[in-house]
């Protein structure tokens, strides 16, 4: 109890003062630091550019540039082509009848207006990417642009007399950091643009006021325009060109062609043509306020909303929307790196993803953001080669942290007073630079040793923690196994697989000479094993008194692996056969857990539990709660999903306190109450693996792989994690598998690369004054090698005053991750249906708010609009409602399966989560026939492009692969040629597929297939995808494995994608 307190304090403790010595400290002698010094920061010239721009970008101005500027040159073409198609509505407009009074409300009679995809007075995206502004405006577009119904002002027309307060974001740096020669390439226009933008930000602190300001000014400067909207469309063209004389650098939009082919599509979808919407090219739209007000002049609010129209005639919309245009994440994760472009010094999005990179500047703005506001953190995510986190050793100085807010030194701190002081980026306190850490500043105010300081140039670093951060010597990696040996476990063959896998992993366990290991097995009695190194064979001790568990040998149950290796080997060889004849059906799980706790409580470590039946003896015995159909839909439904016996919660609390992480492997085909057992894993930072009806013959590979990964992956022991953020913002709730040890301190007895944690933040102050909010994730842990380390990830995010900005910078992946966790937590306190409804409700609210944002300026009519960044949110929301944890009711998933899925999803990193929610479906038969190697094909992206998850995507002549990251389903079309099937499956191709396992046959196709599967498995090795073969029309397997997972289809009363969109749209419009 005491050491917990101390550890917390240690976590807070800052580096001690050291006698100052003026010399520049020598580089720490860590082996990691050597390559560092030779890497990129050496070049001073080029570094300045990004840095300068980074600092300059601190004001949110730069956000506007991001989506278009991230595209390469080819983007121009695509955009242009997309635009070319858009204005098709205008010619129709020419033929429009005179307007009716009800025009803006889009009555059914307004059918002809449907084809107007783009709001009339919004112009094409015109935010100047730097290169464009350099080259001048016309370069961006092909000379002949049939842009109609829209006017476009070039950025040049933006008020040139605008002062340029570029340095808004970070006052300390800007003066010295922005070099004229760097600024020069960025055209003055650009900087003015951003400057004005920043000014606007300041001038209108509340989001709502932005629009009111924009609109009146708009109307005043283009007097004819609004009326033009409401008068006959035929007049629009002449009047427009009259009203908008070409501005300097601008152009007059040429008259469009009289009619366009899209005329025929009246009543069909109109807005971004399917190509554009699927490829994800944002259709940028800018509103040109054109105001002469110096503050508001430049607020060229870029709204990249996308839309598709849904027929506005009630009852007839079914034909009004083609499901092909609906957005889908077929390209995988749609991560947008706007933030890392703005703040290149941020840590990678692997480690930290914000639900929106634009932090709202006021509570009122935050309350209009109906999606979760927070972050998903994966502190130990696997880094690709070459991007490993550098290790820094502050041996002499102690770790440098801010005195007040405890922030670790990071790339965003600034050095002043010729290097003697540094200013904390999140609380702005001036701290002293310890003598050993002192370095002179160059002319630009940067430390001259910057290139040797990874902590000042990288968003992610690891500090070697001094003894201040330890409450005890770093623990050795410790693995303890608690194995059920009752008859059902023996029969399933689980014991052999486990024993073999452990044995094969012994050489690869992390922390080689210090690793400790121990075993307890149990049925109706407990069996302890004395593995003292002096023995030849392990000694087994049986304890049958379950009421008063004690440890028979204090020392030799947990042994050093390298010393007792032979004994451990002998044990693993013999123990499956030892219990071969066991007929005991009982399972004394609770007492065994207690015993394991007693053995491990001194050191902590990882406890792996292999449980095959319901605990039936001693403390913690559970009853068959049963899955009662009558319970579903009532208030008692959730009780099935919450732990029944407080014993397990109490044990979990004790485990966490003693630094024990529990990983639970469940195998049974019968009910084992994973809801209760899983709490052990949930609150200790562990993981639940579930293999329903485990059969060694079928599931061996999966168990082998996942157990081996669990044992051998790099693990951080006895860790605590805290995420700090700047003033005015606070993380309030945390979601994931862990236990909170203090309001903001996450206790993680063991953590590895496959675990992610989500948290929500709230604003403490009604108005944020800063321009940037900094987040810092700090994970204090013991590495397997026995070093105490602190991994620090730093990220900066701009504060925005505008809701549209927040939407533009939203990150669907992080939002969905948070949604999933919130929804799963909700299933523990209420009905499944309520959890699903809450997801739907929040999506609706978010879309409605977005609609309201634009409804003022644009005639939206029956169109459904959504921000480009959230185009897949509805689909993922649907997928979430159809995921195992949330789907249906009684019959749709076993309670154990549901709970296991819930526990798993609570810990999944973002990418993995997205893949699970919207799995990949690809057609592979054509690929397999080609005699090409994998390497060549990986370039050919078309093959790997997924198909929509609908039965309509399945061609009976094809062979399809469905991959959700946890399993493969191979779907054989009924008209697939038998030869091909024979080639793949061998002789028994006609047999029942549930009994056929996929093996490599001696032919090219089969080898290709296996190569393909292995490639997919290697791309993400956190879980092993077992292949299931399904033949078209084979019931019920086809339904179980594939059809229920085709989430775009309406299955069993749940909505299909199209219906879902319709439903959302209706609800969005209801109170819009």
């Amino acid at each position, binding site marked *: *109890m005491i050491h*917990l*307190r101390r550890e*917390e304090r240690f976590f807070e403790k800052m580096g001690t003062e050291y006698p100052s010595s003026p010399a520049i400290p020598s580089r720490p002698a860590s082996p990691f630091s050597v390559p560092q010094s030779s890497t990129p920061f050496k070049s001073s010239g080029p570094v300045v550019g990004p840095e300068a721009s980074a600092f300059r970008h601190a004001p949110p101005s730069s956000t506007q540039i991001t989506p278009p500027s991230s595209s390469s040159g080819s983007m121009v073409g695509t955009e242009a082509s997309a635009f070319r198609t858009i204005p098709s509505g205008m010619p129709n407009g020419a033929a429009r009848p005179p307007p009716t009074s009800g025009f803006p409300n889009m009555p059914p009679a307004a059918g002809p207006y449907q084809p107007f995809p783009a709001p009339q007075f919004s112009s094409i995206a015109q935010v100047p990417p730097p290169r464009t502004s350099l080259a001048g405006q016309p370069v961006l577009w092909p000379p002949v642009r049939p842009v109609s119904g829209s006017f476009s002002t070039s950025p040049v027309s933006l008020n040139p007399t605008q002062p340029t307060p570029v340095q808004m974001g970070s006052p300390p740096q800007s003066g010295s950091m922005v070099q004229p020669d760097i600024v020069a390439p960025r055209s003055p226009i650009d900087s003015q643009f951003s400057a004005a933008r920043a000014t606007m930000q300041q001038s209108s602190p509340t989001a709502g006021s932005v629009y009111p300001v924009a609109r009146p000014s708009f109307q005043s400067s283009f007097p004819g325009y609004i009326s033009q909207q409401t008068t006959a469309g035929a007049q629009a063209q002449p009047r427009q060109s009259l009203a908008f004389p070409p501005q300097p650098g601008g152009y007059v939009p040429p008259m469009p062609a009289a009619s366009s082919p899209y005329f025929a599509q009246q009543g069909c979808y109109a807005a971004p043509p399917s190509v554009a919407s699927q490829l994800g090219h944002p259709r940028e739209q800018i509103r040109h306020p054109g105001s002469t007000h110096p503050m508001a002049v430049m607020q060229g609010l870029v709204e990249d909303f996308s839309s598709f129209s849904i027929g506005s005639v009630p009852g007839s919309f079914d034909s009004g929307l083609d499901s092909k245009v609906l957005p889908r994440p077929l390209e995988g994760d749609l991560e947008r790196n706007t933030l890392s472009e703005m703040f290149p010094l941020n840590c990678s999005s692997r480690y930290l993803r914000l639900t929106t990179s634009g932090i709202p500047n006021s509570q009122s703005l935050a309350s209009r953001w109906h999606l979760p506001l927070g972050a998903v953190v994966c502190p130990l995510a696997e880094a690709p080669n070459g991007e490993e986190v550098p290790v820094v050793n502050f041996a002499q100085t102690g770790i440098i942290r801010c005195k007040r807010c405890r922030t670790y030194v990071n790339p965003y701190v600034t050095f002043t007073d010729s290097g003697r002081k540094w200013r904390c980026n999140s609380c702005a306190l001036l701290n002293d630079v310890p003598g050993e850490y002192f370095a002179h500043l160059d002319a630009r105010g940067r430390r001259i040793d910057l290139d040797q300081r990874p902590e000042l140039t990288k968003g992610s670093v690891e500090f070697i923690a001094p003894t201040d951060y330890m409450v005890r010597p770093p623990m050795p990696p410790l693995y303890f196994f608690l194995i059920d040996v009752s008859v059902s476990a023996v029969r399933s063959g689980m014991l052999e697989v486990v024993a073999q896998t452990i044995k094969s992993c012994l050489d690869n366990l992390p922390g080689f000479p210090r690793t400790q290991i121990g075993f307890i097995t149990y049925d109706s009695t407990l069996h302890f094993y004395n593995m003292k190194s002096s023995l030849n064979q392990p000694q087994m001790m049986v304890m049958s008194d379950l009421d008063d568990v004690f440890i028979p040998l204090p020392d030799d149950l947990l042994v050093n692996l390298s010393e007792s290796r032979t004994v451990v080997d002998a044990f693993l060889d013999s123990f499956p056969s030892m219990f071969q004849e066991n007929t005991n059906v009982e399972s004394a799980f609770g007492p065994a857990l207690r015993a394991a706790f007693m053995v491990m409580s001194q050191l902590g470590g990882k406890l792996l539990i292999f449980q095959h039946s319901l605990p039936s003896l001693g403390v913690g015995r559970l009853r068959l709660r049963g899955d009662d159909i009558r319970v579903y839909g009532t208030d008692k439904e959730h009780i099935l999903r919450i732990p029944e016996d407080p014993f397990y*919660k*109490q044990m*979990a*609390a004790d485990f966490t*306190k003693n630094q024990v992480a529990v990983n639970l492997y469940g195998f049974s085909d019968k009910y084992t109450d994973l809801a209760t057992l899983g*709490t052990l894993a949930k*609150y200790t930072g562990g993981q639940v693996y579930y293999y329903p009806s485990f059969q060694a013959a079928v599931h061996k590979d999966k168990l082998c792989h996942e157990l081996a990964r669990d044992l051998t992956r790099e693990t951080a022991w006895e860790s605590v994690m805290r995420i700090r953020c700047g003033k005015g913002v606070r993380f309030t*709730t945390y979601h994931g598998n862990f*236990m*909170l*040890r*203090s*309001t903001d*301190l996450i206790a993680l007895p063991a953590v590895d690369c496959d675990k992610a944690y989500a948290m929500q933040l709230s604003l403490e102050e009604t108005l944020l004054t800063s321009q940037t909010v900094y987040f810092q994730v700090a994970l204090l842990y013991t590495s397997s090698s026995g070093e105490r380390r602190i991994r620090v990830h730093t990220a900066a995010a701009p504060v925005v005053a505008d809701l549209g900005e927040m939407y533009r910078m939203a990150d669907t992946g992080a939002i969905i991750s948070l949604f999933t966790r919130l929804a799963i937590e909700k299933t523990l306190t209420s009905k499944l249906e309520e959890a699903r409804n809450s997801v739907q409700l929040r999506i609706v609210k978010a879309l409605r708010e977005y609609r309201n944002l634009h409804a003022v300026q644009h005639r939206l009519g029956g169109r459904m609009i959504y921000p480009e960044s959230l185009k897949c949110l509805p689909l993922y929301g649907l997928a979430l409602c159809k995921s195992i944890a949330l789907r249906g009711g009684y019959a749709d998933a076993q309670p154990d399966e549901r709970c296991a899925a819930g526990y798993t999803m609570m810990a999944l990193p973002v990418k993995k989560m997205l893949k699970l929610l919207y799995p990949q479906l690809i057609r592979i038969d054509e690929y397999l026939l080609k005699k090409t190697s994998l390497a060549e094909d990986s370039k050919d992206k078309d093959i790997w492009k997924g198909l929509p998850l609908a039965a309509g995507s399945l061609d009976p002549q094809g062979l399809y692969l469905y991959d959700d990251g946890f399993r493969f389903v191979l779907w054989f079309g009924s008209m697939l040629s038998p030869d091909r099937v024979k080639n793949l499956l061998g002789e028994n191709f006609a047999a029942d597929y549930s009994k056929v396992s996929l093996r490599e046959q001696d032919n090219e196709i089969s080898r290709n297939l296996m190569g393909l599967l292995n490639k997919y498995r290697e791309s993400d090795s956190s879980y092993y995808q077992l292949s299931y073969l399904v033949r078209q029309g084979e019931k019920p397997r086809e339904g179980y494995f594939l059809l229920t997972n085709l989430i775009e289809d309406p299955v069993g009363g749940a909505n299909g994608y199209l219906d879902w969109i319709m439903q959302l749209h209706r609800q969005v419009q209801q109170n819009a």
Partner: protein
Amino acid sequence: MSLYISSLSFLTGLIFLINGLEAYYNYNCNCLLQLMCLADLEYDYVNPYDSAFRINRVVVPEFALQGALWFLHLVTGHWLMFLICLPYLYYNIKLYRSLHLVDVIEIFNQLPWEKKIRLYKLGYLVILLAYSIFWYGVSKKLLVLISETTRKPNYIISLL
């Protein structure tokens, strides 16, 4: 005669009330203690294990005390107090049946809610305390009044 009976009932009521006051005082302390534990936890002066232990130790006594007071009101015929205590008792019983102890694992998630409950309870108790003190004073005055009206000692003696 009737006057005498009423004065007697006041006397007994008074005795109980003094006990009751003490009980309410303890009771308030109990609630305050729990609140302080929660606040300490929030500001990280104590770890959740200790905090949960300390709070859980006094939860059942609190419920028992409240039940006893309620019973006292019932027996002594303080119907108003009895009625005021009734919803509180109902809530406690409901809580006791489901989940009355603080869960060390979830304590941080429940912190705002637990604090809110205890704050409301505290407010409720303060009102009760004030009410009983008021009645204590009033009954004292009444006693004086009674003793004044029944000044004649022989009258009382004759009754005894």
